């Protein structure tokens, strides 16, 4: 028979606590095991159960609106602290700042309260029946889609993105083939992971471009704003498990050679496509034609390979393929002509084909 102290102190033992919590589900055999292991009688356990369940505090629910109010006040006080030191801003301005914070916070609170009142049931259902959704952008088009968490994705032509119809609480996983521009809703608790090519991008927020076409050897990520890290299942990148990309940087990564190059050029060059703008900066003619093919869903073939590496600088917004080729031919010696569209066995027509030849 153990001393009183030993028995009571079992309440503080995590393993024993677990046993007590599950006690009602135990059969006589299991209970006997516990009696033996701890040297207790049934009466001892009876009392310990009462002690354990008697000390079960209710969770204290603090109204969210009050928490937000306290937070807003805190932020305001911090701002006030800074301002009174500089002594430049009038009191009215501070009040306006506070009012702004309170206003911005109140709206989410209203939305949240309404949401949980009216939509919680549906959310539970959605969580239970999550499916994979794939959105593809047809050749020659740009498609916009919104992910279940509100993040926006702009898909370039010939690209596709797959994601679950509902993100579970622990991750936001997305699979990308091709090119997309992301505007990710910030959620530090649940980072978004974009799998593209052979790499995984962990997103801490917010805006970035990923270029990962299967036909290319590399994955290219341009970070406009926020924080994104690159990692490869096949090993470390530059000796790091997660290679962090700085805003404004474009990182090109070759998974087979593990080569990584960084450019700090303007991000416009890499993200202009999402607004329908084609930008060429010292790109070879071959690359230009490849992009034109993709954008206009055509088959553009360069018959004279001697023209392939001619560098080009140009920006096109609304011009169609004819206008673009015409403009390009002003600075570069080439001619182009169409092949008549071929009718395929199933009755559809093949893509328009353009041949580029030296002039």
């Amino acid at each position, binding site marked *: 028979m153990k001393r*009183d102290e030993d028995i*009571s102190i079992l309440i503080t033992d995590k393993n024993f606590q677990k046993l007590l919590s599950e006690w009602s589900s135990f059969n006589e055999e299991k209970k006997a095991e516990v009696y033996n292991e701890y040297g207790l009688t049934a009466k001892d356990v009876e009392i*310990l*159960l009462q002690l354990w369940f*008697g000390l*079960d*505090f*209710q969770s204290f629910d603090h109204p969210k609106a009050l928490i937000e109010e306290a937070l807003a006040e805190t932020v305001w006080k911090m701002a006030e602290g800074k301002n009174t030191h500089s002594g430049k801003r009038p009191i009215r301005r501070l009040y306006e700042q506070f009012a702004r914070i309170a206003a911005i916070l109140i709206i989410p609170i209203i939305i949240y309260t309404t949401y949980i009142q009216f939509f919680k049931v549906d959310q539970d259902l959605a969580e239970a029946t999550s499916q994979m959704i794939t959105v593809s952008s047809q050749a020659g088009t740009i498609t916009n889609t919104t992910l279940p968490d509100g993040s926006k994705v702009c898909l370039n032509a010939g690209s596709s993105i797959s994601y679950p119809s509902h993100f579970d609480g622990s991750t936001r996983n997305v699979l990308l083939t091709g090119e997309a521009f992301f505007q990710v809703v910030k959620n530090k608790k649940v980072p978004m992971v974009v799998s593209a090519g052979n790499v995984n991008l962990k997103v801490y927020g917010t805006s970035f471009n990923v270029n990962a076409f299967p036909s290319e050897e590399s994955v290219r990520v341009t970070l406009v704003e926020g924080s994104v890290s690159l990692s490869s299942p096949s090993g470390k990148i530059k000796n790091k498990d997660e290679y962090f990309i700085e805003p404004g940087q474009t990182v090109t990564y070759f998974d087979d050679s593990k080569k990584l190059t960084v450019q700090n050029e303007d991000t416009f060059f890499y993200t202009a496509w999402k607004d329908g703008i084609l930008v060429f900066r010292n790109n070879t003619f071959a690359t230009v034609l490849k992009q034109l093919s993709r954008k206009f869903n055509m088959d553009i073939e360069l018959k004279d390979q001697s023209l392939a590496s001619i560098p080009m600088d140009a920006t096109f917004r609304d011009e169609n393929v004819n206008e673009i080729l015409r403009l390009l031919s002003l600075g570069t010696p080439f001619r182009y002509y169409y092949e008549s569209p071929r009718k395929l066995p199933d009755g559809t027509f093949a893509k328009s084909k353009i041949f580029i030849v030296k002039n």
Partner: protein
Amino acid sequence: MVEFSEHTEDKVLWHDLKSGDKFCFNQLFRKYYPELYYYGIKIFPDPDFIKECIQKVFIRVWETRGSLAEVDNVKSYLIVSVRRMILAQKGKEKDKHNIEIGKAENYSFFFDVNEFEKHEEISDEIRKVLLTAINSLTKNQREMIMLFFYHELTYPEIAQILEISIPAARNLMYRTLIHLRESIGEKSLNSMKNMFFLLFSSVSVKKIE
């Protein structure tokens, strides 16, 4: 498993807060404000005062974020800070409050029966007995019960908060639990007899059916 990720999340939030991440500051505030408020109110039942103290703690955390150390348990750190802030502020503002400082200690860490969950394993009668026993403990014992069973802190953390040694904290817990166990021990025996009676009654009813 849940504990591990809670701990890790706090470490990330704390680390990022130190780097000046306002979002993490906000998240940490939202996460711990309720617990800190509940704890503070138990020390000194003045809602505005407690709110101010918690805010002052967070403001100071933000203002000194550059020189903050990595902490093992963020929650424990915050509780210690809030406790110290309350004591410090009480010293400064004693004239402004209705409850005098001397008497304030008498109001600390008393509990109401509604602060505890109902469970089938314990009858209302015994819950009341237990509550009376808890409220008749010393102030440190009552605070310890809350820190251990509500805030789920460890002995070293509790020792730091109560400003006693770790062995003293363990000892205090032993004595507290013995006292509580004894108080419900007798009552429990009686109620068990009642339970048996009820059991037999229901069995006979079933047989008739």
